[in-house]
Structure formats: C-alpha cells, structure tokens
C-alpha cells in the first residue's frame, strides 16, 4: 500500500513494485495532465513536484521525473501535479505568467515546464534569491521544448514572482506538513518493494532477498522498467535509511580529514557542501543530468552503478576518495580506485551495500579541475570527462591525479600520463610527454557519443588545457594579462 497525498488530498493505492509515478497517475488515477515524452528521464514532460518535510518540518518541493520515479517512493510524500495548481481558470502565478508570455505552443511539454516553474516559485518564496541565469538553467535545464526556443519561458520565469495568481490552499496548510513529518507512511512490503529505515534492516533485507534490486534515485535503474520492460518483483529502496542520509565531517581509516557522504544523499543536497569545498565538483553538478535528476539521483548511485561514463567517479579518483561498504560481516573501507574492476563490475560483494563515500578535504595548495566534454552543455552524458588534481611543491608537480571517464571500460586514472608529470616542473615538454603517454594509458572505443579518435584527441586537449591552467597560475604575478583558456560556460 502506498500512502501519500496528491494535490493536498490523502491517497492510498496498491501497486506492483515496478510501477512508476507516471503510470500511477496516468493509468491508475486518470490524471493525464502529466505527459510521457520519453520515459527515460531526459525530456521533463512528466515533471511533478514532490513535497517532503525538511528538518524544520516545513514542506519543501522539488521537481522530479515521474516516468522514472518508483511509485512506492511516494510513501509519506506530497505529490503535486499540474492538475493541482489551479482552480478552474484561476491560475497559479507560474501558469499565468506562461499564458501571459506566450510560453506554450504545442503545449505538450508545458505541464512539465509549469511544474519546474512551480518548484522554482515555491523555492524562491522560501529562500528568496536573484533568479540568475544559472539558477534558471538549473530549474529548467531538464525540460525540453521543441517549439518555443525557450525565450518566452525565460520571460515567464522572470515575471512569475510579480504575477498575481491563485495559491492552492494546501501550500499554506501546516497540518499537511505535520502529517507528513510525523506519519511517514507504512513501509510497503507485500508488493515486493522494501523501504528499510535503518542500515541493519537494509543489510538483512539484502541477505534475505539476494535478487532484489537496490534503488535510490532510480534515475538509471528505472530505465530497465520503462525501456526494457523489466518487471522487478523485488526492490529495496535505500533512500529512507537514516545512516545513508548523513553528511558529516570525519576521517578515513588513515586519519585524513574530510566529509563522509551517505550513499543516498542526493546531488541537490550536496550542492552547498561542494560549493564551499570543491567548486570544480560543484560546477560539474550543474552539468550532471538535470534538476529533476539531481533532486533524486545520488552520489552513491553514480558510484555503485559503475558506468564508464558516470560523471562523478573520475572526480572521486582524482580526490583519492574512499568508500565504506557494509555487509552482514560489518563494514570495510577501500579506495575508490579499487572499487571499479571491469565494465559495470565492482568490488561490492553480493550481500554488501555502499554505505558512504569519503571525500578528503583539499589541502590549501591542492588543485582540482573537472572538465566534461559532451554534445550539449546541459543534461548530457560525457563523451570524455577529465578530473585532475595536483599540488605544486617548490615548482614541481606532486601527487598528480589524472582521472578520466569515457576512455576505458571503467573510470580510470591515466597512470602513464601521471608518471610523466609527477615530480617534474610543469614544462611544455613534460605535458607533451604526458599526452604521449595517454596513447598507452587508454584505447577508447567509438560509440554514439564520439569516435575513438575524438576521445583520444579530446583527452589530449584536456591535458593541454591543464598545462595552460598551470602555466597561467604560475604567471599570475607577471605583468602579462591572463589569456582566456576556456569558455566561461565550461569553466572550472
């Protein structure tokens, strides 16, 4: 049984483990305002808002792709759809602004865009801040529109704060927030969808149901349901496990200081931390999936999924991150570099779970750069991603980490190229040697995202860019003006 609220009203529905929020809405509840555009989380036509109580008990709404969100994850949540925002022709300000600014043409993407605008509108009411281009892009980058070219949607977004409109009564209903904060819904079990609350429950369930799929954000896994028509009979949802939601300062086994990030912490929840501690990683988050994906997707999922083109694993390699794996026998820690074994194969034992990721604190003199190459700047998967970290010690490069995604069957460090630089002054000759070494380090494949040749040249180009950045940093006190070495939109 899934217990949740839909547009302010309580609902109880029974559903199989693999049902998505979108199919629940369209096929079970006859709520057809939410559209299916791709069923893969890439177009945003199915965007809904999910209300969850925050630490202070206030309901906060985030956007999500209903097509790849397991319906059972609605347990104890407030699901808001386009049908819930208006009363007759009295429109919510985000809807009124869309009409006023001619923001719809064919109208099929419009409900999704309205919901992304709604979450932005409510977020802005809760935490007012300028609607910068970056903020708008984060809010709307996951909603494809094939008709308008987005300009009128931008105008609507900028105007909605000053547009009068209808405010659904549930938005200001404290009782709803209290109900959701206190009554988190019954764990759904008989359907084969398990929602453990504690780590020991998770480990036990994993042992008892070895064939069950683990799901966090579902932003990759649920494509098996929508694209390959898999009927998952057993699913274990890790997103309600308290220990997997932590975000705390600590040390790894070797005593290095850093942050432990629970495996079920979403990208969106990581943003403030990354903005403060790892600006390059933070910048990458803006190009990782879309707002809808970042609101549900987790760092742990990206690691455990072990895709060779996942965006975060190369960064973890460059940072010398570590992972805590937990199973019936307890926990163990290992280097991120030792986790990825072969294509989609990891060191995770069948009865283990990824519990947390340790991100060491960057020393003051340590640099991190993360550069992603893709066809489209937003919401695209890397053709090549380079994550580079180094320290300049008395003019010599030290602890050089050159990690790449998209260059091999697993995210991997370019060990030959690293060796060419390690301990040397950052001279053009050493960087040329590093670029030469890349050809030994990687034999990338050709696929839909890029040819083998392109990947080789692109990796070399990123090393060349690294040279320019290091040289630029070294010459900052000189009289020469700094050259632009990359576009602002791609910087960091």
């Amino acid at each position, binding site marked *: 049984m899934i217990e949740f609220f839909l547009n302010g009203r309580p609902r109880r529905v029974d559903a199989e483990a693999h049902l998505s929020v979108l199919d629940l809405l369209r*096929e079970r509840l*006859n709520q*057809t*305002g939410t*559209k299916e555009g*791709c*069923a*893969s989380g*890439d*177009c945003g*036509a199915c965007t809904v808002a999910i209300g969850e109580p925050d630490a202070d008990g206030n309901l906060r709404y985030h956007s999500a792709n209903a097509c790849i969100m397991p319906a059972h994850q609605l347990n104890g949540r407030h699901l808001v759809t*386009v049908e819930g925002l*208006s009363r007759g*022709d009295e*429109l919510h300000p985000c*809807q009124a602004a869309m*009409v006023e600014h*001619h*923001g*719809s*043409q*064919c*109208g*099929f993407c*419009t*409900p999704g865009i309205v919901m992304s605008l709604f979450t932005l509108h409510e977020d802005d009411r809760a935490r007012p801040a300028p609607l910068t*281009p970056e903020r708008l892009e984060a809010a709307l*980058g996951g*909603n*494809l529109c*094939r008709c*308008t*070219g*987005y*300009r*009128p949607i*931008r105008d609507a977004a900028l105007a909605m704060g000053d547009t009068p409109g209808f405010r659904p009564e549930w938005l200001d209903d404290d009782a709803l927030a209290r109900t959701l904060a206190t009554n988190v819904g019954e764990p759904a079990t008989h359907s084969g969808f398990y929602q453990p609350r504690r780590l020991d429950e998770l480990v036990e369930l994993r042992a008892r149901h070895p064939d069950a799929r683990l799901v966090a954000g579902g932003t990759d896994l649920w494509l098996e349901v929508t*694209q390959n*028509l898999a009927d998952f009979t057993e699913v274990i949802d890790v997103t309600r496990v308290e220990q997997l939601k932590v975000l705390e300062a600590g040390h790894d086994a070797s005593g290095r200081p850093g942050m432990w990030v629970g495996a079920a912490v979403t990208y969106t929840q990581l943003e403030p931390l990354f903005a403060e501690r790892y600006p390059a990683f933070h910048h990458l988050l803006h190009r990782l999936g879309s707002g809808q994906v970042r609101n549900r997707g987790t760092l742990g999922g990206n690691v455990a999924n072990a895709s060779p083109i996942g965006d975060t694993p190369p960064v973890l390699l460059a940072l010398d991150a570590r992972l805590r794996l937990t199973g019936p026998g307890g926990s163990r820690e290992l280097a991120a570099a030792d986790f990825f074994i072969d294509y989609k194969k990891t060191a995770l034992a069948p009865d283990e779970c990824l519990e947390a990721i340790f991100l060491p604190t960057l020393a003051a003199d340590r640099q991190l750069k993360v550069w992603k*190459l*893709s*066809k*489209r*700047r*937003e919401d*695209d998967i890397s*053709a090549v991603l380079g994550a580079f970290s180094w320290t300049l010690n008395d003019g010599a490069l030290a602890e050089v980490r050159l990690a790449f995604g998209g260059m091999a069957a697993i995210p991997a460090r370019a060990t030959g190229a690293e060796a060419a630089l390690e301990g040397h002054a950052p001279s053009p000759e050493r960087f040329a040697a590093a670029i030469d070494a890349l050809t030994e380090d990687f034999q990338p494949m050709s696929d*839909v995202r890029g040819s083998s040749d*392109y990947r080789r*040249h*692109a990796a070399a*180009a990123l090393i060349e*860019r690294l040279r320019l950045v290091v040289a630029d940093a070294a010459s900052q006190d000189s009289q020469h003006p700094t050259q*632009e*070495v*990359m*576009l*602002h*939109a*791609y910087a960091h």
Partner: protein
Amino acid sequence: MRTLTDLTTPASASSDTADTPRHAPAAKGFSGSAARHESAVKHVTGRAAYIDDLALPADALHLAVGLSPVASGRITGLDLSAVRSAPGVVDVISVADVPGHTDIGPVFPGDPIMADGEVLYAGQVIFCVAATSHRAARQAVKKARLEIDEVEASLDPVAAAEAGDVVRPTHRQQSGDWEAALAGATHVIEDEQFVGGQEHFYLEGQACVVHPTEDEGVMVHTSNQHPSETQKLIAEVLGIPFHAVTVEVRRMGGGFGGKETQASPWACLAALIARRTGKSCRVRLPRAEDMKVTGKRHPFHNRYRLGVDEQGVIQGGDITVIGDCGYSPDLSEAIVDRAMFHADNAYSLGQARVTGHRARTSTASNTAFRGFGGPQGMMVIEAAMEDIARRVGEDPLTVRKRNLYRQGRDQTHYGQTVDQITLLHDLIERLETSSDYWSRRQAITEFNADSPVIRRGLALTPVKFGISFTAQHLNQAGALLHVYTDGSVMINHGGIEMGQGLHTKVCQVVARELGLDLEAVRISASRTDKVPNTSPTAASSGADLNGQAARDAASKLKSRLFDFAAERYQLDRQDMRLEQGELIAGIGGSERRIAWGELIQDAYLGRVSLSEKGFYATPLIHYDRASGSGRPFYYFAYGAAVAEVALDTLTGEYQVDRVDILHDVGDSLNPAIDVGQVEGGFIQGMGWLTSEELKWNERGQLTSFGPATYKIPAYGDLPATFNVELMQGHPNSMASIYRSKAVGEPPFMLGMSVWCALRDALASLTDYRQAVRLDTPATPERVMAAARLARKLHESRAGGTP
C-alpha cells in the same frame, strides 16, 4: 473596402504601404493583435487533451509493433505463436492479414504497411500486436521468433546515387551556359559538404485512437498533419469507401513535418485491428521505437563548383545535391526539388546548373521536416559565401551583399523573378546597423589576434524562402463556418493545430471579417467530415491557405447578411459594415447600428442560411518539370540573423553569445505567435546544425534513438542575448491573407548564422585566409577536428609562403 476578389490580383509594385486594408477599430483579439494561443490556458493546466489522454472504453486494445533489427534481408522465419499466447494478447497481425492495399506509399508506391518478405530498413514494422494493456502488448512483442537472411545494407547515398540507385529520377535546373561562366571566372570555388539529418523530436510521439463505427467504418483520432491522406490510406487498406472513414485531429504535441506522411501507418494498423476485433484501439509509439521507425530530415551530400569575379560575385557554376532518402520515395521527390529551388538562397547564381539526386539507402524513409529540403540546399551557397570571402579577402558580409539578388540579377536558376528585392536589401541593412555588425567585427578580429585558445566568430546570413507547395494541386483549402442563433460562431478549416497558432490566427481572421471579439469565435477539431479533401498542414501554408478559405466563408456569409439587412431594416447596402459586434449602415442621411445577436436572430427567423463554406486556391503558380522552370512560389519570405559565437579551439566546445534577428512576415496576423515561430524556428535550426547528431552503426541500426543520445537544444542553449524583431512596413506584395506572410519554416534557416559564425571563428586560425570545411552537425567533435585542420592548413601555408 477591397473585396476578396480584388485581393487576388497582385498589388502594384508601389503597394508596399498603400493597399492593405487597415484594421478597423479593434475588437478584442482582432487579427493583427498579439492574441494568446487559443489553448494557452488548457496547456498550462494540463487540460489540453492529446491522443494518449483520450478516455477509452474499458475493453479497448493497446497496440505494439514488432520491428526488424536488420536493415536489409529476407524474412525466412516468423513464428508468432508465443506472441499470440502471451498474457493479455487479443490479436496479432502481419501483412497477410491485410484485406486491401498493403502499400501505403503516400505519393508514390514503396511503403509496405508491414514487411512483405523483404526487410528494407532496421526498424521496419513486421507485425503488430493488440493486447489489453500497452505494457502487455510491448512485452508480447519481445516473444516473437524472427529469422532474417541478412544481406549487406546500402548505407552510402553517394555511392547509391552514382550507381543510379535512386527512389525517384534525377532532376535538373539550368540557367544559361554554366560551363562558360566557370571558364571565364577569376576564381573557381570548389568543395563538398555533408549536411546531417534531423530527428523531429515532437514531444508527443506518434499516436492514434481508432473506434470501429456502424457499418464497416472507423472513427480515427490521430496526431497527424494530413488527415485526408490518412483517411484515404485507411480506406484503401480496409477496402472500404473513403466516406466510411472519419479522421479527427484536435491538436498535435508537435509535428514539424514528422506527422505529414508518417502518422498514417499507425492509424492504418489500428483501423485494421479495430475492424477485426470490433474494439477501440490505441497506438502510441514509445520514444525509442518512434525514433527508429520514422523517417527524419534528409541528410544531404552536396558539391559545388562556382566561378566568381574578382569582387567575389558569382558568375555561374554547377551544384549537385544528393538527398539520402532512405528506402522509399515518401516525399523525397518534392524535398530534393525544394533543396534545388533553394540552392541560391538569397543570391543570384548567374549561369548555373543545379542537379538533384534522390539516393536510396537501407534506412527509414526520410520525410518532411520544417524547410523540406530547403535548408539543406541553402547550406551549399552559405558555405560558398564563406569560401569566396576567404578567397577574395573580404568580409563574408560584404561578399554576401554583393551577391544578393538585385535589379538586373533577379532571375532564379529556375526562371522565377525574385520579388520584393528592396525589402531584402533594406532588411539586411537594418540588421547590419541594429546588430552593430561592423564594430563587433572589429572587436572580434582584435580579440582573436591576441587569443590563442578561444576564438570568436560572427556571421550575418539571410534567408529567402519560397512559399507554396511545389505540388501545385496542394495549394487549396476549404473552410466551414457556422453562426448559431445566439450569435456564437464556429469555424472549421482544413488545417491542423500543431502548436503554431494556426487556429488562433484563423479565429482572428473570422473575428475580423465579422467585426466580433475573438471570444465569439470558436474553433473545434479538424475533421474530414467537416472539411473534406484537405491538403497537409505543411509548407508553412496553414494560415495562408486556410485563413483565406475562412475569410472567403466569412465574407460570403457577411454579404448574405448585408443583403438581408438592407431589405429587412431598409438600410443602404453600400458602406454597410460589421464592427465591434454591430452591423453599421446608413439609413438615409443617418446611421443605424444593429447588435450582432439581433441581426442573427432576425436572419434566422427570416430563413437566411447562417452556414457557409469557403474555398481558396493560390493563383499564379506553375512549374514545368521538363524544362526545370516556372514560378513555383507565390512569394518569398525573407529574414536575416547575426550570430556571435565563442569557441574553444582546443576542445571544440562553443557557446552562442548573441543573436540578432530581423524577420519578414509581411503584415503580421499575430505578432506574438509570429515571434514565437521565429524564435522557435531559429533554435531548432541551430540544433540541427550543432548538437543534434543522428548516428547509425555499420549494420544500419540507428544508435541515437533517444533523448539521452540525441540532443536537441535545451534551456541553456538559448543565447544570453537574443534580439528578435519582425520587419515593419513591408506588407506582402502578393494578395495573401491581409498581406501577411507564412512564418512556419523560413526562420528555421536563420540557424545557419550560427554555423557560419563557427566557420568564421575557425577561419581566424588561418588569419582569415582560408575557409575551413565544417560538416554538420558541428558537434564539438567536428569543430575540434576542423580546428586541428585549420591549424595544419595555416602552418603549411605559412611554411610554403614565407
């Protein structure tokens, strides 16, 4: 006041400002005003219903299709027994189950409804399953056992064209002695280019619902640009008369050409099973299947050899365009024709020969897509403009302006005289000024001189696009107007609303003719039993044709009401008019006003028909295929764009920093809708040339079959500065509806400015001495390769000439 009949004669050359009927005192939502889309509130509230939102009877069936994984071969085994016995399955059909025609080629034969022995492309439908749910049908499909004797697929259109493997005969247009022009030229510019195709990516995929009706018929709801053709094909497939099939389209969640011919197969399959089972049937293609099964914009391979004088002015030459048509003709005859018609864009080709081949390959049958081949043809001459500029050492804008059609050089290579040349020149000059082209050019040149990695590029490109279906008979439209006794008005016409605002515009036309508020005029779904024998909503023609037909109906009805009023109220028939909800007329020396509602009531009681049909056929157009000449276009629509880009020459990444557009829509029917078409067209055109890359593997299987791998522009691709204006003060010189111009397709080609700006930035790596070939889409991969090539060219040149 001019009547409709008066307006069908072309206005005189001096008529740019004089003869357009000015708007009468404005009623609300009047034609020419920025009325909102008729469904805007329904869009934003989720109440606008698309096909998959329609409620069905409880026993309705859901269809799924079984596709060939193989691009070319013979089916040697097809075992569907496991499919039939899968849970929920009610019916399974293959080609042998079709009672009537099995070929559903829209214009020419060649499109089997399901594979008939032979497999022609990867993604071809082999069988169709009906089950009690969408998921059950799709899961059942996976149980089929299929054996295909695979043979090597034909995937090289150039080789196919050279071998004469074409879906339609090669066509040629020629003006003068192109060989002499080349021989006498100061410079000869020669190159080839690959122009990639494009997936429509309409947000609503292919979908339809078919209900069986009494007798032997069907009622069809479909997301479809051409309901009359679907009606015909269903009737032929079922072997029943056309009048037994009714097709209705309320709205589409995007079409862009992708639902002109390629919406019909699903409706035919659903109609077959609806008749077999007696149950309502729904088809909606999952995105990946939609992308694999349906045709796309044609990829083109183009070659050009042009002779220019020392000023860079084209004297003549030879252009060959090869359209990659896929496995069947579909609309490729007309699409490659349109590429040929637009190989000149806005420039005189002098004495030129243009040849168009329609190559057959083992891929989905490529089809209509906004611009219909025109964009691919224009890419030839826009590439050449950059090439010429580098050769003669002038700014590309200077070269473009020198080559524009002008007095004395105003004949196209197919013999049509280019009209409104003054408008073209005026438009470009205004944009040149408003975009501050020359001072930005200087700033960019200076920036590039000092910037080793980041280079900026700038380009102004014009668009001249011919308006009319090149198939003459399609240039007709009908409308049906009803006035009910409360005075409310219902208009239907043959066009389809796909987001472009056609219904809004047509309502505005009727409101204007009848002097009513827009709210008084309603439009309902387009149906083949209301307005028959319609043309597709395509070729940007929707408002031109259907607006005129609606106007014809309204003006006939108005005339009848005037006759009635003159007699009934004893008013002067002359100068009688409808304004702001009233009939106004003279009576002796004074004026009398009669409310619309009262007039209608009286007319009804006076037994005057309050229903009228309208019709329109575009005058003057003709084309002779034998000679390759004529006047295929009623008029041209113009526009121009300036794009500025910054590109990283190391990685090939780039961003579009600023775009300025000035576009000609004549006297706009609705500026808000027209600006929406201009902006949306530009971004879609930019996507075509930049991030949207179709990829097939060596077996001919599409590998970019979803939005994860096929990247249409997203919000962040909207240029930070995006100035878009409609050209003012130039009504259409032809008697189009209220002197407006078609706007659906022309702005798409404004996106070429981005591609030219990228080439401009790349040319900076050669000190602007050499043009750098850049095939499309110009992905970072291609741009990076071009930058490497540019550096090599420059180094070898620098090495050779110290």
